[in-house]
């Protein structure tokens, strides 16, 4: 590429974005949904379709003529939910296709790995679904941005609701996926629930490869705990939850209270996978398609997005889709406002950017760590879903203030944002 | 005292006494034949000599050293080579490559990468292998795939592989079984010549009496795991017990 001060400066009349999502492996369906959102976002940016959230977005720098007058094109790749493969795929987008921004992904390990790559290569990384504290904590990077919420925020949002629902005198037993995301999730939720007065009976690490959790579930029965916290995601969560329900945990009475199960991080796909077992189980989400209808106009944008997504694909979008869509728009908007694709200028435009109308209510892209701050949803599995799109019910929305933390919070300490890297 | 001394060797397989108190002494530079009915324990005895089987009791001394407790490759390094009843060769390799392996195997047993020094002595080894092949009249088959040879040829190849090692004791388990008459005669000549060169002792198991009587200096007759008689060929031929148990009327 020509030397214009940054990597892959677009030379022609198009600009290329790279969407790097899991297309094989257990998260392939989530990846497929992300990809749908990306395609929709590109359509809207190029002025096709109904424009979706462009009309509700508080910033009006985008006008449906692409970005900075250049038509948006995109390339896609498969992360396989492996950091190696994800980096290879991202590299090929950068080196071969001239992608100027990489987005997507469905796990924190991949997000951190690809974020590191984008930093080195001098392109912008707009994280997809990544929930670990590390992504904008110890592994944060100047070129990387996260719209999705994180483990700390989940915990902070859940804690008061859990207190309301289950009381302050509870004993929790944690099962935790034995890798970095699981640990940060567990650490966060433990801290938040202990602050309420809950006791932590035990925390058991489960292998990633585990499919049958029975041998981890049975000790819970007689441990004296009355809440089980499943710090699992995806297939792990579906299996551990299913096993827990099979073993009758939910029918049990311990210490005179109903035994409860909590799944801190929720998603629509997981709820679908867990089927009836998810009924009444509480967790947190970044966004839900019913948000505007149920919680009011504060969350404007939601309906616009659901309409255009639903019309195109026939079903409502997932939170992963909404994040990816929002991230694409945010990137485009930042470029438009900055007047250039230079990652450093875009970084400046995004840092401290406050916006509204992308479905989450007023949101801040904090400059210190490139983490978005917005309301977090507490949800639970519907008891009697009217159809497969209503598996999740919104319980409450926890306002931004409650989930905001100091950038130097110990759970996020240790890394440095560093300087932005424009590459070549 | 002979170069090979077998003392009171016993070997049982479950309820079967395959070898019972076998004593055998083989003198240096002689050909000693072991004959006997099928299942008498001849191959089992050889297996005990080369470390394939470990006798239950007894001792096996070769050149003053015990072979018991040593691994087959160590026993070979002491100077014992063996031709098997069913040919054991490197089927995937060519005849010439088959010959190169024993040529490369050093008697001291040291492991060598052979990658660097190969250029140095490969030519000499190659010549050695070729002259051995010439002796067994297989030079024209040098590039043949060993597995696709007829069985007689496999036997001869195996014999050549053993001979090229210049062993002090050569064990032959039915070397001419399945060989055409002409080749059997050639083999007899070859073994005679090897013997004449000296410095080699042979133990031979054979059911072909023509071969046995043309080569052997002494013969041990084994029956049901125990030596029946040991004597010179002439005496054995006339031995009534042997005729009855083994040779039959046609000998």
């Amino acid at each position, binding site marked *: 590429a020509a030397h214009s001060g940054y990597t892959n400066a677009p030379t022609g009349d198009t600009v290329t974005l790279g969407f790097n999502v899991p297309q094989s492996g257990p998260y392939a369906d989530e990846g497929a949904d992300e990809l749908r959102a990306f395609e929709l976002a590109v359509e809207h940016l190029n002025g096709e379709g109904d424009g979706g959230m462009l009309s509700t977005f508080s910033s009006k720098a985008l006008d449906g003529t692409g970005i900075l007058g250049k038509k948006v094109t995109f390339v896609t790749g498969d992360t396989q939910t492996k950091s190696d493969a994800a980096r290879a795929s991202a590299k090929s987008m950068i080196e071969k296709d001239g992608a100027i921004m990489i987005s997507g992904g469905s796990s924190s390990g991949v997000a951190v790995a690809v974020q590191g790559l984008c930093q080195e290569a001098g392109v912008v990384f707009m994280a997809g679904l990544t929930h670990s504290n590390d992504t904008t904590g110890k592994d944060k990077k100047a070129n990387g941005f996260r719209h999705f919420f994180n483990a700390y925020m989940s915990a902070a949002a859940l804690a008061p609701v859990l207190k309301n629902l289950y009381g302050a005198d509870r004993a929790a037993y944690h099962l935790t996926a034995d890798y970095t995301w699981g640990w940060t999730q567990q650490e966060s939720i433990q801290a938040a629930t202990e602050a309420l007065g809950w006791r932590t009976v035990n925390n058991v690490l489960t292998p990633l490869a585990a499919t049958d959790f029975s041998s981890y579930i049975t*000790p819970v029965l007689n441990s004296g705990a009355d809440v089980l916290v499943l710090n699992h995601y995806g297939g792990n969560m579906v299996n551990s939850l299913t096993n827990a329900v099979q073993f009758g945990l939910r029918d049990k009475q311990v210490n005179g209270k109903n035994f409860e199960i909590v799944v801190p991080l929720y998603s629509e796909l997981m709820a679908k*996978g867990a089927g009836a077992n998810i009924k009444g189980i509480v967790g947190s989400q970044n966004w839900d398609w019913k948000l505007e209808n149920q919680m009011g106009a504060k969350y404007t944008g939601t309906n616009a997005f659901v309409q255009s997504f639903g019309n195109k694909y026939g079903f409502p979008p997932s939170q992963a889709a909404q994040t990816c869509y929002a991230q694409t728009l945010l990137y485009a908007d930042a470029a438009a406002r900055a007047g250039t694709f230079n990652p450093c200028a875009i970084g400046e435009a995004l840092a401290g950017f406050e916006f509204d109308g992308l479905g989450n209510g007023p949101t801040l892209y904090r400059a210190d760590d490139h983490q978005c701050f917005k309301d977090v949803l507490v949800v639970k599995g519907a008891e009697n879903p009217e159809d497969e799109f209503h598996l999740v019910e919104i319980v409450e929305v926890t306002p931004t203030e409650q989930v905001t933390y100091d950038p130097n919070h110990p759970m996020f300490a240790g890394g440095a944002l560093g300087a932005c890297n424009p590459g070549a | 005292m002979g170069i090979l001394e077998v003392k009171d060797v016993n070997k049982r397989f479950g309820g079967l006494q395959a070898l019972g108190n076998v004593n055998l002494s083989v003198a240096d530079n002689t050909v000693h034949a072991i004959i006997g009915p099928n299942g008498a324990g001849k191959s089992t005895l050889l297996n005990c000599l080369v470390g394939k089987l470990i006798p239950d009791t007894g001792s096996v001394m070769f050149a003053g050293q015990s072979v018991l407790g040593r691994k087959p490759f160590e026993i070979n390094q002491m100077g014992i080579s063996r031709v098997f009843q069913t040919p054991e060769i490197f089927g995937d390799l060519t005849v010439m490559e088959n010959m190169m392996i024993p040529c490369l195997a050093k008697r001291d047993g040291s492991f060598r990468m052979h990658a660097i020094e190969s250029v140095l002595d490969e030519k000499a080894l190659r010549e050695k292998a070729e002259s051995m092949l010439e002796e067994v009249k297989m030079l024209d088959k040098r590039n043949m795939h060993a597995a696709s040879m007829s069985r007689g040829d496999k036997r001869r190849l195996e014999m050549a592989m053993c001979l090229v090692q210049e062993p002090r004791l050569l064990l032959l388990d039915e070397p001419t079984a399945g060989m055409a008459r002409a080749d059997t005669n050639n083999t007899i000549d070859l073994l005679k010549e090897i013997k004449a060169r000296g410095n080699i002792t042979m133990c031979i198991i054979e059911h072909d009496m023509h071969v046995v009587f043309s080569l052997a200096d002494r013969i041990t007759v084994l029956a049901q795991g125990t030596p029946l008689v040991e004597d010179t060929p002439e005496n054995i031929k006339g031995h009534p017990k042997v005729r009855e148990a083994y040779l039959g009327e046609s000998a």
Partner: protein
Amino acid sequence: MDAIILQILNGLDKGSAYALIALGLTLIFGTLGVVNFAHGALFMIGSFCAVTVQRILSVSFKTVDPSKTDFLGNPSTYDTPYVVHWFGPEFGAGIIDWSVPLAILFAIPIMIAIGFIMERGLIKHFYKRPHADQILVTFGLAIVLQEVIKYYYGANPIQTGAPEVFRGSFDFGVLLGFDPNVIIYPYWRLVYFAFAAVIISAVFAFLQFTTFGMVVRAGMADRETVGLLGINIDKRFTIMFGLAAAVAGLAGVMYAPINAPNYHMGMDFLVLSFVVVVVGGMGSLPGAVLAGFLLGILESFASMTQVIDLIPGINQIIIYVVAIIVLLTRPRGLMGRKGVMEE
């Protein structure tokens, strides 16, 4: 004590799954000598038989319900399964509820057919080929099967419940004199254990009381000679393969309610089942079953907190540690026969 009994129960259950998969694999791998990397895929297809039966039974027609709107604001519709429509709400729903046991009937012919097709169409040509080639072709096949399932069913797990009556759990502890609610165990897992026991005994009986097993073993050792004795070994190999596929498939069908089926569940089990077969000893059916239960129980014990606290991470590697120890101390696994796949 109660914790130990629970872990033994868990181990038996996990062991049943391992044993069933390993049993099928031994029939193919230990007896036919084919390294079948598609075996996990057969297990997966079995599970998807359950999913499919559930889907078929739930095929519905739509009725518009004008009182409600769907997420796009259009009048919403609701589904009525045809079986419910035909047989009335109670019996119809009952049929759907029983779809997993019904799937057994469906899976047997399907799995046998898949086994036959696989053997006749593909594996047949690979008996004499090197193991490496077998690995390549069956691995390719496994990927293809997996991707086909993914194409039609997606990557997300699909919950396939056991019949209502088996859904609860059973207070096992009371039987043993413990307090109530101390040792409770899900009904379905007990069903699975019993089912595994039946299948395993059936396979053993079939191979023990007929000459079939002997002929196949002989055929594997020396096809040519068995042919010389007037035996059509090809036919028997095909049957054996169909049998193995059926065992794998049935293990999968019954496993569906325990863990929601997903398209890559076969791969998750594949490596493990090879380890089980080899630890059990190549070619030995009792060995495979024994190793399956042994590893299942050890795995359960290794996941107890007390053990993990002692040796962190042991739950991650226990199976491999056991495999290494067994193979180093017993050259042919627990009950392996000499000469089977030792080259």
